[in-house]
């Protein structure tokens, strides 16, 4: 690739000495230029979709309660018809694995799609920049405003911008906390100024994080704080679609009039207008090649295409392409075919296997859980024919939102018997109950100091009267005092 041409004052990054940049991060404030086009439209689609889910989610109702509620106080997570307990952490792990694999898959196919279109950092920055643009004006107006000394107008504009930012940030913080505390109650508490101290704190904390990250930090979050940005390139291969500047077509760069025959002047198709740099939210020059700062937002593609249209040149001087396609001059068709390569097929297969396995286990999950805790009260009773007596506490969890009647039995030793409170035991919907149980067994039938026994907890399913009862077996040990 040719040596990059330094862009002038409009350029942004590139002017700093690299040594200086790594040691002393003198951040230049970026003024990304607004851009319109196919990819900007996609990004706004994702902004709307993700935020519809995020802001709207806590307001949905299911079974007369909040549909999605991570109820930390009662240690239960409700997701529509499902109720998760701390014991279900394996599903959280599986969810994380699925997310990670999806990220690997998307990255292998087309680079940082997540970063450019769906990451909250991108989404909130986009929303905050939209507010900024509406209040302060376009890129040039904003630069001019910042360069001005403080005036009544500047104060008014800045106050309006920050006021709107803070309002959006607070609403975001409120929605976030609404996933952990029922949002309607939370809303009433806010309106009556009766919000609890920790809820207040977390609304402000999340709101402040949103305001800071989307208003002030912006691209620095991606450049210095995001772990994914650092390792995403290991998932790339020469067939990964990345945002690429076609240097063979564009160089040598230079400005020219629309009417000029640039080929006769020895120029390429890049008019060196620096629009691609001006629109970049991380302030890089994509013409320098693939850089870790590139979040794959494709704003430069949209920007460049507009310029190409104006010049009457074909679009796609900057485009989604692959390393191999650039070197081998692939057609669009061939690039698309290369998506279905072994690496992508294997990633996809593994992803579907995990999703399928998770779905099946979730479907077959027994909505009854039992934890056995042995109490200290073990005694020996009787004279000639002694009996060993152990006391246990059984925590029985009914994980579905229907009441259940359960009965407990014990087995494992000849002549073993159990004494509990009057059976069957009633357990309310999505709740748990601790039941004390006394187990007795003849001393004669126990051979070892501690003998394994099995508790069986059975519950009839009231929603399916004819169905087999739910049955959970839990191991325990019987100890001779």
């Amino acid at each position, binding site marked *: 690739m040719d040596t990059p041409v330094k862009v002038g004052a409009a350029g942004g990054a590139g002017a700093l*000495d690299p040594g200086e940049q790594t040691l*002393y991060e003198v951040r230049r404030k970026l003024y990304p230029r607004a851009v319109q086009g196919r990819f900007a439209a996609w990004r706004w689609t994702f902004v709307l979709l993700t935020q519809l889910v995020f802001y709207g989610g806590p307001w949905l109702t299911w079974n007369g309660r909040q549909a999605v509620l991570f109820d*930390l*106080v009662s240690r239960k997570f409700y997701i529509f018809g499902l109720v998760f307990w*701390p014991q279900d*952490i394996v599903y959280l792990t599986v969810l994380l694995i699925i997310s990670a694999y999806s990220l690997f898959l998307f990255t292998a196919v087309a680079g940082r799609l997540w970063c450019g279109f769906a990451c909250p950092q991108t989404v909130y920055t986009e929303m905050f920049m939209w507010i900024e643009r509406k209040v302060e004006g376009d890129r040039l107006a904003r630069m001019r405003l910042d360069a001005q000394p403080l005036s009544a107008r500047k104060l008014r504009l800045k106050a309006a911008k920050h006021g709107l930012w803070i309002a959006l940030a607070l609403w975001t913080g409120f929605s976030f906390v609404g996933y952990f505390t029922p949002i309607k109650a939370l809303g009433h508490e806010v309106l009556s100024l009766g919000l609890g101290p920790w809820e207040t704190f977390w609304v402000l904390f999340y709101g402040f994080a949103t305001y800071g990250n989307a208003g002030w930090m912006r691209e620095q979050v991606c450049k210095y*704080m995001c*772990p994914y940005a650092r390792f995403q390139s290991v998932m790339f291969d020469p067939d990964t679609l990345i945002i690429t500047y076609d240097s063979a077509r564009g160089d040598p760069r230079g400005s020219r009039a629309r009417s000029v025959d640039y080929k006769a002047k020895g120029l390429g198709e890049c008019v060196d207008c620096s629009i691609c740099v001006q629109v970049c939210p991380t302030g890089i020059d994509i013409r320098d090649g693939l850089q870790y700062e590139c979040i794959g937002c494709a704003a430069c593609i949209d920007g460049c295409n507009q310029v190409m249209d104006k010049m009457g040149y074909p679009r796609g001087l900057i485009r989604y392409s692959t390393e191999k396609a650039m070197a081998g001059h692939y057609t669009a068709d061939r690039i698309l075919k290369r998506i279905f390569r072994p690496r992508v097929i294997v990633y996809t297969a593994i992803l579907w296997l995990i999703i399928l396995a998770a779905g099946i286990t979730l479907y077959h999950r027994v909505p009854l859980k039992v934890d056995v805790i042995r109490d200290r009260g073990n005694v020996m009773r009787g004279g000639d024919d002694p009996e060993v007596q152990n006391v246990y506490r059984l925590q029985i969890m009914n994980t579905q939102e229907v009441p259940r009647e359960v009965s407990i039995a014990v087995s494992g030793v000849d002549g073993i018997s159990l004494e509990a409170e009057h059976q069957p035991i009633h357990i309310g919907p999505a709740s748990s109950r601790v039941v004390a149980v006394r187990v007795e067994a003849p001393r004669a039938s126990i051979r070892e100091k501690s003998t394994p026994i099995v508790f069986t907890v059975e519950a009839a399913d009231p929603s399916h009267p004819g169905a087999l009862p739910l049955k959970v077996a839990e191991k325990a040990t019987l100890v001779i005092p």
Partner: protein
Amino acid sequence: MRLQRLIWVLWPSFIAAGVAEALFFTIFDPEELPFFGTIVGASRITTYSVGFFLFWAFAAFSSSLTCFFQRGSAELNRCPLPPTARPLGCPKRSDENASCR
């Protein structure tokens, strides 16, 4: 630079604290958590929140030590920046062999 160091310390420890918080409180119920023989009396939300900040503080302590030990010999022996590149206000802007000790 100071801000960047602060981010280097606070941010990785924030992530680590989040993971530790999720794992710890999935396994241990705050209402059954022993505290010098008695049970932590606070509400679950309080224990979760205080727990998070404790995890964060510990992780930040570790991060700050990493940050502290990370300086190489060049940085410890003398300032790696040429005098003109040192920040305005640095008292050693004119001293070629200055170090930050």
